C-alpha cells in the first residue's frame, strides 16, 4: 500500500503575526474608537476569525502558560473571591496552566487576575525558559537526565 504524499514547507519570511491581546469587538451599541478595530488583513486570515472571549478592558501581562506563580502573601480582606482562591492555590509554585485548570477558568481570565495580583504585589512570577534563549546546551542536558530517571 502506498502512503499518501506530503510536501514539506519552509520557514516564513516574516515572523508570525502577533495574536490580538484583547477582544477587539466593540461594546454593545458603541462604535469602536479608531485604531481599535482589527486591521483589515485579519478578516482574510482564518486564524483571525476568532477572538478570545475573555473579559473586556482588563490589562493583561504577557504571561506564558508555564510561567510559575508563587503567592507572596495571604489573601487580603480586599481580595475578590477569585483572587483569594488563586492566591490559596499558589502558596507553592504553580504554572498559569495549572491555575487555569484548577480554577476552571480560561487562560485569558487567569492572566487578567494575575495582572491585578501582580500590581498589588501579591504574587511573584518565575519566567519560563524559552527556545529563543537557548544558547545553553546544559539546559537540554538537564532535561535529558531528568527524563532518563523516569
Amino acid at each position, binding site marked *: 500500500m502506498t502512503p*499518501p504524499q*506530503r510536501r514539506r514547507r*519552509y520557514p516564513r519570511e516574516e515572523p508570525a503575526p502577533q495574536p490580538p491581546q484583547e477582544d477587539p*469587538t466593540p461594546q454593545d451599541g458603541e462604535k469602536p474608537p479608531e485604531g481599535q478595530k482589527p486591521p483589515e488583513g485579519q*478578516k482574510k486570515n482564518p486564524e483571525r476569525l476568532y*477572538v478570545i472571549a475573555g473579559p473586556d478592558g482588563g490589562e493583561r501581562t504577557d504571561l506564558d502558560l508555564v510561567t510559575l506563580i508563587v503567592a507572596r502573601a495571604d489573601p487580603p480582606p480586599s481580595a475578590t*473571591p477569585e483572587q483569594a482562591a488563586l492566591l490559596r492555590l499558589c502558596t507553592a509554585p504553580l504554572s498559569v496552566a495549572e491555575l487555569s485548570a484548577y480554577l476552571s477558568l480560561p487562560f*485569558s481570565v487567569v492572566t487578567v487576575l494575575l495582572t491585578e495580583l501582580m500590581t498589588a504585589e501579591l504574587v511573584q512570577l518565575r519566567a*519560563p525558559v524559552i527556545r529563543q534563549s537557548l544558547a545553553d546546551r546544559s539546559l537540554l542536558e538537564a532535561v535529558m537526565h531528568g527524563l532518563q530517571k523516569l
Partner: protein
Amino acid sequence: MDFKNSDTIPGPRSADHLPHSAQAAVKIVIVGGFGVGKTTMVGSVSEIKPLTTEETMTQAGVGVDDNYGSETKTATTVAMDFGRISITEQLVLYLFGTPGQERFWFLWNGLFEGALGAVVLIDTRRLEVSFDVMGRLEERGVPFVVAVNTFPDGPHYAVEELRTALDLSEDIPIIECDARRRASSRDVLMTLMRFLHSLAMSGALR
C-alpha cells in the same frame, strides 16, 4: 464555579505541589491530527493526573460588528490537556497535547514560539491528518520529531518509506511508539531532546 466557597475548590493534591525551589519551566508540545493519541501520550508520562486548560473564543467573522450581542454570535471552547514532569528541584517540564487546528493556537500566547520543540504524532491509518500540523511547524521554525503511534490495525511502513511520504529531511528522527506505555513515550521525548541537542551543537538552533 462558586468562589465564595473557595475552601472546596479542588486544588492540587499535596503530592502535586511543586517544591518551593522550582525556579523555571520549559515546555514541549505534542501535536497531531484528531485522535492520533496526544492525550494518551501526555497521560502516560505525566507525574500529575493530566489537567485541562480551556479558552473560549467568539467567532468574529463577517457581520459580527452588526450582530454583536445578538444570539448569532457563537462561542467555541477549545481545550488543551497537559501534564508535568519534574526534571530537577529547580526545573519543571510541561507537556501540552495541542489541538491540530492552527486557528486555535493563538489562544495560548507563545505556545509554540516558547516551546523547546514538538512531537508530531502520526497514525499510519490516517497519515494525512498530521500533514498540516507538520507544515505549520516548518513555517514557524519549530524543531520537531515524528512519532509513529502503532495501532494494531494500521499498515506498517518502513521508516524510509515514511520519510519519503512525509517529505522529511534525513536529520529529522522518526520513531515508532506506543503512546500508552510510559517507557515508549519517554523514549520519544528523549529522541526529541537528543535531536534538539544535536541542533544546538551544530549551531542551528536559534
